[in-house]
């Protein structure tokens, strides 16, 4: 028998349900593996060893008692540390939340537990989700399991590194590409569902109009399984849709014969570096071999998507992060007056990237600039949505690279906020429009590091996006095994 840490979620569920292996054995195997690698990876801010064991034992007791086990029975799931798990630290990788302990669990965590998953630990991230490399974490660097002097991507870099090394599933959050880009950099699958499919209750808000929660896994099937478990209406999140959730596993193996896939001219794919371009071309050929038709489409506003995203996310961050004031929770710097307390707590509690974004947002929302920046960006977002909706009248899904490069080195982009945000150039359109998107490994760059192909669908066509991802992944030549080659 192979070691349980190598198994995907589906295999774990099957074996735990049948009694071939206990949930505790699976948990201990993943814990031992993750602890071995942690000194070199730095994926976790908190490992929930005792809570996890208790939870795994409860799943095993349930099985012995003859109760039916949930759809994620015994599956260890790592959680990005901006999602609340009751009784565990919740830091958002920020100094300002050092010592904060969550008093209740996010809806997604409650749903994972209701499906008999086992919460494994809290993963590192860019501070409050702001960044594309995990380097803005106030606590530690996370290293790419494939090559330790490269970043894992971000902001869900800890979640991606965890899945590429020791646990089958992690949850991340994606505001401008924060699930998809690290998934691509670490050779795993990352899903940003349709806005409103998954409740954000218990996710610390960064930019509420583009914050999403979604899974990172080693296969599309495991991603669909996890997404199915966490999706659906939530009375605690007014932005969560009340539509019934389709069975995301049902049509996964139906193939993509005759499906129409679009590539937007404005992406200027031919300007990609040669290695990324080669992987892209091979991916299109593989999809055609599977029976897909590739069409060219146009969406002129795509070129401005990243600037539009940057303005909107900074504006929303500046208001969302106003709640961190050293008064009700988090770190407080003692001072003589309330104003001094507030300023000192914020100034010492927030890191560089967070301060930069709060200031850009404050500027863009200030009198005299609101119309030119925030108002303008909102108009651009609406135009982009209209253009993509028109494109979806001609095609079933759109394709794009996930990122314009493979994983880059530490410190290469930290002093240049524009270079950093340009890693998200292909992911921001789906963020702004709330459309579902998946990143699936599609080859390697010149250094042998993984690259990702992104598939974007119309709102609430998550099942279509997953089916295309699954068909693509099923081409064995495109599979890469992070467990064999990374860490």
């Amino acid at each position, binding site marked *: 028998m192979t070691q349980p840490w190598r198994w995907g979620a589906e295999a774990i569920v099957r074996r735990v349900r049948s009694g071939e292996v206990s949930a505790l054995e699976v948990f201990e195997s993943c814990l031992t593996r993750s602890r071995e690698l942690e000194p070199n990876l730095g994926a976790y801010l908190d490992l929930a060893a005792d809570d996890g064991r208790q939870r795994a034992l409860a799943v095993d007791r349930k099985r012995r008692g003859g109760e039916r086990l949930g759809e994620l029975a015994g599956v260890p799931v790592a959680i990005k540390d901006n999602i609340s798990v009751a009784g565990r630290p919740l830091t958002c990788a920020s100094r300002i939340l050092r010592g904060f302990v969550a008093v209740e669990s996010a809806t997604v965590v409650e749903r994972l537990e209701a499906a008999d998953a086992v919460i494994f630990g809290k993963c590192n991230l860019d501070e409050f989700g702001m960044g594309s490399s995990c380097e803005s974490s106030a606590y530690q660097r996370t290293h790419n399991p494939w090559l330790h002097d490269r970043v894992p991507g971000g902001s869900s870099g800890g979640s991606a590194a965890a899945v590429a090394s020791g646990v089958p599933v992690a949850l991340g959050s994606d505001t401008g590409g924060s699930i998809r880009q690290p998934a691509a950099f670490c050779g795993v699958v990352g899903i940003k569902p349709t806005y409103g499919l998954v409740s954000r209750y218990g996710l610390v808000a960064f930019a509420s109009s583009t914050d999403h929660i979604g899974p990172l896994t080693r296969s599309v099937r495991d991603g669909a399984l996890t997404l199915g478990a966490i999706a659906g209406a939530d009375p605690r999140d007014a932005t969560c849709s009340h539509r019934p959730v389709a069975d995301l596993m049902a049509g996964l193996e139906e193939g993509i014969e005759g499906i129409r896939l679009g590539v937007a001219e404005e992406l200027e794919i031919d300007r990609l570096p040669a290695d990324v371009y080669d992987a892209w071309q091979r991916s299109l050929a593989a999809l055609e071999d599977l029976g897909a038709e590739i069409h060219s489409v146009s969406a002129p506003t795509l070129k401005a998507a990243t600037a*539009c995203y940057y303005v909107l996310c900074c504006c929303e961050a500046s208001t969302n992060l106003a709640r961190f004031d050293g008064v009700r929770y988090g770190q407080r710097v003692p001072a003589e007056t309330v104003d001094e307390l507030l300023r000192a707590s914020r100034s010492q509690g927030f890191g560089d990237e967070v301060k930069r974004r709060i*200031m*850009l947002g404050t500027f863009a929302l200030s009198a005299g600039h609101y119309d030119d920046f925030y108002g303008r960006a909102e108009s651009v977002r609406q135009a982009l949505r209209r253009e993509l909706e028109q494109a979806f009248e001609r095609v079933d899904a759109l394709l794009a690279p996930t990122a314009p490069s493979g994983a880059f080195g530490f410190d290469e982009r930290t002093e240049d906020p524009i270079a950093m945000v340009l890693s998200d150039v292909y992911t921001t359109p789906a963020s702004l429009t709330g459309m579902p998107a998946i990143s699936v490994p599609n080859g390697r760059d010149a250094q042998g590091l993984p690259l990702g192909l992104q598939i974007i669908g119309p709102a609430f066509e998550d099942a279509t996006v997953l089916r295309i991802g699954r068909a693509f992944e099923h081409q064995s030549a495109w599979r890469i095994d992070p467990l064999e080659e990374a860490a």
Partner: protein
Amino acid sequence: MTLGREDVQRIANLARLDLTPAEAERYTEQLNRMVDFCDQLQQLDVPPSTEWREPQASPEAEDRDAPCLPRRQVLHNAPQHHAGLLTVPAFKSVPKSQTAPAHPQDSE
């Protein structure tokens, strides 16, 4: 448009952030590059925003009484509290004769 040091100080003040001289210098340079980058939005020919349209409409929730978190649990993460309330420094000075006697810090 170009932001000067005093513009950046004004923005930091609005955001309740104190900047060191080194930060003020660095952020002035970086914010100018960010504003330049975002300026490309002005070049686009798009109709003005009308209203924010959610990708889906959700029904409004019914107003209902429900239990909230116990006060003790909420205060667990408070940096300083006393007698079940959050404490902060005085907002304005009060003549000594009117001040309440000092209480020991609530250690809950």
